[in-house]
C-alpha cells in the first residue's frame, strides 16, 4: 500500500507536469495533452461523492489558474468527471472488483478493464472540456477529431504513467 505522502508527491508531480505541458508544449490544434483525469480517478472510490466533486473542482481550477487558460474550463470538466467516475467504474469493471477496490489500477482490475475505465473517464473529461472551450458543435469534424486524437494519446500516456509510477508498491 502506498503511503499518503507518496500519493501527495505523485499528485503534485503530475500536476506540475500538466502545468508545464499546458504552458510550454505546443502540439497543434488537434492535440490537448491532459493528465488531470488521472488525478481525479485516483481519488479513492470510498470517498464521498461530494468531497470527490469538490476535490475535482479544486484540481481543475488550480490547473486553470496555473496554466493561463480560460478560468473554469478544466474545473467544469474535472467536476463532471468526479461526479460520474463512480458510475463509470461500476459499469466497466467486473462484479468481483466493484466493491473491494479503492483505487483502480491495471494490477487490481486487469488491463482491459482499466483501459476501458480510463478511456470512458478521459472521454467524459475531453468532451466536457472541448464543448465548453468551443461552446458549440461547429466545426463538428474538427471537434470530433480533436476529441478522438486527444483521447487516444491521453489514455496511452495515462496508462503508461499509471502502470510505471502510480501503481508501484
Amino acid at each position, binding site marked *: 500500500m502506498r503511503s499518503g505522502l507518496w500519493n501527495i508527491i505523485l499528485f503534485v508531480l503530475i500536476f506540475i507536469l500538466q502545468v508545464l505541458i499546458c504552458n510550454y508544449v505546443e502540439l497543434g490544434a488537434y492535440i490537448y495533452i491532459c493528465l488531470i483525469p488521472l488525478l481525479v480517478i485516483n481519488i479513492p472510490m470510498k470517498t464521498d461523492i*461530494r468531497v470527490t466533486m469538490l476535490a475535482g*473542482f479544486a484540481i*481543475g481550477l488550480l490547473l486553470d489558474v496555473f496554466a493561463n487558460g480560460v478560468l*473554469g474550463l478544466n474545473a*467544469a470538466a474535472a467536476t*463532471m468527471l468526479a461526479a460520474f467516475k463512480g458510475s463509470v467504474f461500476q459499469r466497466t469493471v467486473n462484479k468481483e472488483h466493484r466493491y473491494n477496490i479503492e483505487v483502480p489500477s491495471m494490477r487490481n482490475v486487469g488491463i482491459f478493464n482499466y483501459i476501458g475505465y480510463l478511456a470512458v473517464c478521459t472521454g467524459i473529461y475531453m468532451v466536457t472540456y472541448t464543448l*465548453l472551450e468551443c*461552446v458549440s458543435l461547429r466545426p463538428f469534424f474538427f471537434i470530433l477529431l480533436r476529441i478522438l486524437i486527444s483521447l487516444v494519446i491521453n489514455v496511452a500516456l495515462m496508462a503508461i504513467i499509471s502502470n510505471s509510477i502510480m501503481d508501484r508498491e
Partner: protein
Amino acid sequence: MRRSELISLISTVLLFLALEILSIMMASNNSIVQRYRIMGAIRNTQTSMWKTSRKVQYFINYRVENEKLAQENLALRQELDLYKTAADAVDSVSSKAGYTYILARVVKNSTNKQHNFIVLNRGRNDGIETGMGVITDNGVVGVVNAVQDDYSQVISFLSADQRVSAKIAGNGTFGPLAWKGRSVRQARMTEIPEHTEVNPGDTILTSGFSTIYPPDIPLGKVTKVFDNGVSIDINVELFQNFGALQHVYVVANNNAGQIKQLEK
C-alpha cells in the same frame, strides 16, 4: 428510498450543479469568446422560451381577442356603411343608412349535409328577424329562417336551394351563385352572358341586387370557366371557410320595407 438517501442525492445534485454553473460563469467572465457564445446560447434559450410563452398566452387569450376583434370589425363595418350612405347622398338622391349589423356567435354549424343549418346566439330580443342575411368578412353565410327570443337559425349558403346574386369584380356582370353540393369551398356562378370576359383568378362579389346582402362583399375567386354554348358557367372557390365559422354579422337592410313595397 429513505429520507436520508433522498437528502444525500439532492445535496449531491445541487452541489454538482453549483460547481458546474460556477465553472461556466468563470469561463464566461474570463474569455470574450466564451462570454459571447454562452450569452448567445442563453439569449437563444430565452428567446425560444419567450416565444413559447407568447404562444401559450396567445392561445389562452385567443377567444377574448377574437371577440374583441369581431366587435371592432362590427364598429368599422357600421362606420363604413355610414360613409357609403353619405357618399350616395352627395352623388344623387338622399337615403337613410343602408344596413345595420348585429354581431353574433355561431353556436351550432353543420357542413356535411345537402341542407345545412347554423344556430346563432342572437334572437328576437337582439333585433333579429327572419329573412335577414348573415355574412362575414369573407363572404355570405346564409339567411335567417327561424327566430327565438335568444337564438336564431340560419339556412346555410351550403344548401342545395340557396342562391346569392353575385357579380364579377372587373366588369360587374352578374348572375346567381350557388353551392355545388360537394366541397364546402366550391360554388358555381351561372347564367353569365357568353361575350363576358372572365378569367381564372377574377374576384366574385355580392351584387347588392337583393334586399338580403349588401353589395361588394367578396365571395370567392374564379377557378374555371365553362362555355355551355348559351352562357358561361364559372367555378368559384369560396373565401369563406364554413368549417371555421365563429363570429358572423346579421345584416338588417333598413330600406328593405320600401324596396319590397315597390316590388309588389
